[in-house]
């Protein structure tokens, strides 16, 4: 489509721009939004409504757009539901209309609208009961939903900036600008956020005079001054919510995700100057393409030189309509009539407005008082407005004025509670016909229309005052100077008017919520069925839950509800708004936590070695650990079996650096550990270690590990890898509370020590070779659970003789810088690495506990630690362990399992049953693995005590995986029960 003559507007730059809408190529101009370019190209039909699929066009020029939502981009990576009014075009952009099939012009499902009242509020609750909702649901789901579901997302990660300032101001209209200037002049560090790409608010099109200049010149001058005062002005940026005193603002240049920035702003004071949103007046067929907000027409004209139509009827309840009409007339729109709901002698008609009105009449505009537009004619576009007097003859039928556009304005509703959970106080202001801010705090206040100010002079003064007070609250000591003087359009003097009179059937086409097709008839139904509170009405009718978050509908909906209930709007109230203030993309919310970076990964000092030597790294909590090594086998099972076999036959090394290590030091260290562990640490001799378990407050086992006594007053407590962070907090908690005032400290040294496990019959020979002469004698002197400190390569080395494999083994604790050289030396000495999977096999063969036994549901009694419990150490959790339930026969007990036939496989997660009660589990398999050493499947299980006897026969029932395996209860220690291998 041809470009037409070049248009002029505040947001336009010269130069054509082509884009595609529903497969057709159009030409716009640099700076155009999709809305302005399509308007200029004469496109009126832009979407279909959710429920009835009625034809819809542009309704607004801002975020409150309920109708003209587009899908942007090409498949698979599309962005759905982008308001055309917010979307700044770029060359070649591909746009599609939504929610229609097969085409926007002819939508099959629009036949539904013939059902009219049938599909009204509550429809779904009353039917589709037989045979079941599931029968109808797929069709309903496909008819519902607005834009296309994206098949991919190719958005880059967002930029993030954390800002600290004295005063944050949301909104850069006249109030916000005056506030920012006052605060900055007073010496405050100011951040000013404006949702639109340009500052000024309605000053963009309302030609007021401020401080002797045109409004536009004043805006430019103020922005220049703010820049010199060091204020940050962020355009296309909306404060979306308050996160406990930290405001989150999202910048989305061009109205489309792609180059987003998320700001976390921490101000000392906040001014909300978010302006007001024009509200419609509801009449029959007020949803037809061509019915639009009056302010939208002005914005499209001033910003983009775009005409919203040829011939218009204006419909309003206030004085501002006359000045607007004059500007639109001057801009080339033929204004056929102005329909004012107020009586001719209404107090609003002051002399200046009278003069304006007379001049409009002279220009051929018909000016009607005490009249209303009672209906729009036309299907896919407005063809005429039906006008009627509000009283007397002709009030029901009215007369027809042909036009293609009806511009409507029912006043303005302040944008309150920008993302603040709707919890701020608000009060009804009759002169505004809406709610304004109520009581305010020093640190967060409102300015401008939010306080009910609608004439420029008052708005500027209010903004200035709010900015100055906010700066003072933030501690700025300078003078804010005098408030800016200005004059603009006359005060609106509106007379609240929410909807035109209508007959019953016509109320079914009086649309309140355009996106969700909520009509006056729906409100009546809701009331008749007892949904009388505004919150109930919202939930029952879906009023105000659309993508524009009810901006275009909640106040007018409340007013109509008040009318139907015979109450005041003040009494009816409005439903609570919910954050975010603007819908924000999930990618922006996710921040940098996307893809591989979704969660930080912790790496051991050997991480890179594993990665470059075929170690299959897998997450364990935040840690990355090698599960197996590719060189050992192609799949996890084969590799683990080979690695485990190798350790028993020869030897191997494993990375144990993820084990948590807490250094507990001070004169009270031993007593502190006695409190935190089931058995006593104070009996450990220096140079020795001990396997110990921690209890949770309720007596269940929390964690297990070794405790090493380094000195009389110094210990290292190791924790399992997955619990390290939690155990650190646990130790710190009791140090800070019950043990406050005692002389003990807790220091996390997990990362200060790498740990290499060296296990297997060949391990001692390899170690002697690697550690060399200084260690030779000491190694052979180390008894089981002894450790020795020394040096390796000039750095600290601790050799701990402990085994979790049942083999002769040590753990080498070294500084991280030495981990790779030590590891490689061990490899040179003939040892090969093994992974977590093999480690688990080795542990299981020895009956050592893993996380599936320490699952937070087991007590030390369940795990066979009666002797430790009986020692009677009065540790944390000990008292509650005496509760009767923990001693009942139904409590589990840890046992070993083998297949009855010595061959069959059984898996962890299988439930165990007895022959007597085949449907009632008496326990379950906690761990299982194939043991290459014993040549069969082994398991550990928790089984009710009354079902446990040596050689008892149970069934491992695994219906999920289709197996029932007879298993026999055996000792949990499957291999080398006397532990000769690791002790010699």
């Amino acid at each position, binding site marked *: 489509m041809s470009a037409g003559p070049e248009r002029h507007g505040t947001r336009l730059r010269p130069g054509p721009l082509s884009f595609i809408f529903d497969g057709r190529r159009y030409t716009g101009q640099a700076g155009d939004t999709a809305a302005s370019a399509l308007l200029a190209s004469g496109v009126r039909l832009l979407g279909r409504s959710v429920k009835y699929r009625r034809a819809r066009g542009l309704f607004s020029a801002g975020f409150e757009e309920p109708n003209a939502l587009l899908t942007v981009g090409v498949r698979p990576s599309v962005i759905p539901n982008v308001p055309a009014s917010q979307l700044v075009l770029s060359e070649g952009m591909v746009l599609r209309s939504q929610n229609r099939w097969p085409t926007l012009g002819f939508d099959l499902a629009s036949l539904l609208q013939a059902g009219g009242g049938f599909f009204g509020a509550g429809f779904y609750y009353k039917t589709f009961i037989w045979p079941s909702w599931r029968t109808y649901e797929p069709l309903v789901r496909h008819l519902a939903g607005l834009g296309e579901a994206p098949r991919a997302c190719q958005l880059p*990660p967002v930029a993030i*900036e*954390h800002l600290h300032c004295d005063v944050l101001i949301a909104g850069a209209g006249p109030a916000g600008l005056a506030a920012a200037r006052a605060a900055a002049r007073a010496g405050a560090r100011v951040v000013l956020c404006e949702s639109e790409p340009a500052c000024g608010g309605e000053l963009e099109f309302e030609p007021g005079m401020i401080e002797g200049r045109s409004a536009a010149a004043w805006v430019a001058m103020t922005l220049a001054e703010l820049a010199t005062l060091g204020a940050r002005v962020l355009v296309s940026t909306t404060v979306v919510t308050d996160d406990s005193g930290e405001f989150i603002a999202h910048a989305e240049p061009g109205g489309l995700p792609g180059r987003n920035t998320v700001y976390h702003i921490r101000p000392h004071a906040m001014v909300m100057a978010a302006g007001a949103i024009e509200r419609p007046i509801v009449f029959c067929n007020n949803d037809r393409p061509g019915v639009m907000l009056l302010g939208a027409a002005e914005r499209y004209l001033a910003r983009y030189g775009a005409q919203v139509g040829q011939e218009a009827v204006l419909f309003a309840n206030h004085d501002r309509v006359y000045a607007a009409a004059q500007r639109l007339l001057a801009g080339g729109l033929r204004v056929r009539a102005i329909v004012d709901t107020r009586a001719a002698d209404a107090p609003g008609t002051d002399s200046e407005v009278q003069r304006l009105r007379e001049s409009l009449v002279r220009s051929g505009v018909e000016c009607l008082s005490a009249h209303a537009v009672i209906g729009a004619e036309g299907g896919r576009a407005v063809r005429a407005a039906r006008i009627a007097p509000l009283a007397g003859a002709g009030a029901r039928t009215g007369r027809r004025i042909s036009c293609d556009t009806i511009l409507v304005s029912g006043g303005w509703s302040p944008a309150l509670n920008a993302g603040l959970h709707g919890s701020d106080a608000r009060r009804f202001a009759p002169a505004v016909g809406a709610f304004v801010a109520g009581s305010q705090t020093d640190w967060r206040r409102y300015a401008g229309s939010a306080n009910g100010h609608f004439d420029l002079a008052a708005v500027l003064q209010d903004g200035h005052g709010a900015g100055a007070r906010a700066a003072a609250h933030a501690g700025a000591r300078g003078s804010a100077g005098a408030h800016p003087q200005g004059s603009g359009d006359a005060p609106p003097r509106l007379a609240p008017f929410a909807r035109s009179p209508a007959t019953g059937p016509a109320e079914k086409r009086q649309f309140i919520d355009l996106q969700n097709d909520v009509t006056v008839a729906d409100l009546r139904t809701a009331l008749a069925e007892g949904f009388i509170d505004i919150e109930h009405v919202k939930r029952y009718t879906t009023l105000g839950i659309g993508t524009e978050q009810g901006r275009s509908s909640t106040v007018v909906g409340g007013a109509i509800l008040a009318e139907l209930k015979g109450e005041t709007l003040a009494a009816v109230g409005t439903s609570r708004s919910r954050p975010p203030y603007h819908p924000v993309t999930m990618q922006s919310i996710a921040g940098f936590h996307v893809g591989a970076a979704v969660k930080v990964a*912790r*790496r051991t000092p050997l991480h890179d070695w594993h990665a470059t030597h075929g170690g299959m790294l897998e997450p364990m909590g935040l840690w990355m650990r090698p599960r197996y090594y590719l060189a050992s086998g192609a799949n996890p099972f084969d590799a683990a079996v080979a690695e485990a076999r190798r350790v028993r036959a020869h030897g191997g090394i494993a990375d144990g650096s993820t084990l948590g290590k807490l250094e507990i030091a001070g004169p009270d260290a031993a007593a502190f550990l006695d409190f935190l562990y089931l058995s006593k640490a104070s009996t450990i001799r220096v140079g020795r270690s001990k396997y110990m378990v921690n209890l949770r407050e309720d007596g269940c086992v929390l964690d297990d590990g070794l405790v090493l006594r380094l000195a009389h007053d110094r210990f290292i407590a190791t924790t399992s890898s997955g619990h390290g962070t939690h155990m650190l907090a646990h130790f710190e908690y009791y140090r800070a509370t019950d043990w406050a005032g005692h002389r003990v400290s807790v*220091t996390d040294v997990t990362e200060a*020590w790498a740990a290499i496990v060296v296990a297997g019959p060949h391990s001692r020979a390899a170690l002697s070779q690697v550690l060399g002469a200084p260690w030779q004698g000491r190694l052979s002197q180390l008894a089981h659970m002894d450790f020795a400190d020394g040096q390796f390569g000039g750095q600290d080395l601790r050799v701990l003789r402990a085994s979790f494999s049942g083999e002769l083994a040590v753990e080498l604790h070294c500084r*991280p810088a030495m981990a790779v050289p030590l590891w490689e030396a061990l490899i040179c000495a003939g040892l090969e690495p093994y992974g977590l999977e093999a480690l688990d096999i080795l542990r299981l063969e020895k009956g050592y506990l893993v996380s599936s036994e320490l699952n937070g549901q087991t007590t030390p009694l369940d795990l066979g630690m009666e002797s430790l419990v009986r020692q009677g150490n009065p540790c944390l959790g000990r008292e509650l362990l005496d509760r009767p339930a923990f001693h009942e026969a139904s409590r589990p007990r840890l046992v070993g399992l083998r297949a009855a036939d010595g061959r069959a496989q059984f898996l962890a997660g299988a439930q165990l049953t007895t022959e007597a009660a085949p449907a009632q589990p008496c326990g379950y398999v906690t761990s299982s693995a194939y043991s290459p050493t014993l040549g069969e499947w082994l398991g550990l299980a928790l089984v009710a005590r009354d079902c446990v006897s040596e050689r008892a026969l149970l069934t491992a029932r695994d219906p999920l995986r289709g197996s029932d395996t007879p298993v026999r209860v055996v000792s949990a220690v499957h291999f080398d029960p006397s532990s000769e291998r690791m002790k010699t």
Partner: protein
Amino acid sequence: MDSSNTCSIARGPARTALEFSAFGGPRPDFIAVSWPTAPGGVIRDELQRPELLHFAPDRWLAPGPTAQVSALLRAAADTGAGVLVDATGKWVELLIAGPGAARLLASAIAVEAVLDRRGCAAVTLFDCPAILARQNDDFVLWVQASYAADFIATAERFRAMLRSGA
């Protein structure tokens, strides 16, 4: 490219690190004249590099202590008011330098607020536990070693984004 947003991220040398923990209670007598007692207090060498950082209640970090600092810490431990723990390898030192350093860190935290009237602060940057301090016009930080690789990767991504003027 905007030169005001450029910065570099450099790993410091691996050095001995000591952590001192006091047992709390009344103001202990170990405190020498130069000991940083205020929250976030730091003592620095002549090049303004932090030598002893008070990063948490009753806790101090000495990254790469000189003989003098070591002696100071040992003397404090000898009074019995606290203990010294060798944390060598726990922290990875990183220097973030250049005109864009503050902006890079602002991708993770409100730097100015966090370091307001203090020499150092314990923080979490891109989900990584760290101790952050100013060093002349630049920033120095000690990240817990297991997080360091991820921290550098995330910081480098933001650095590239800022350099390209996003």
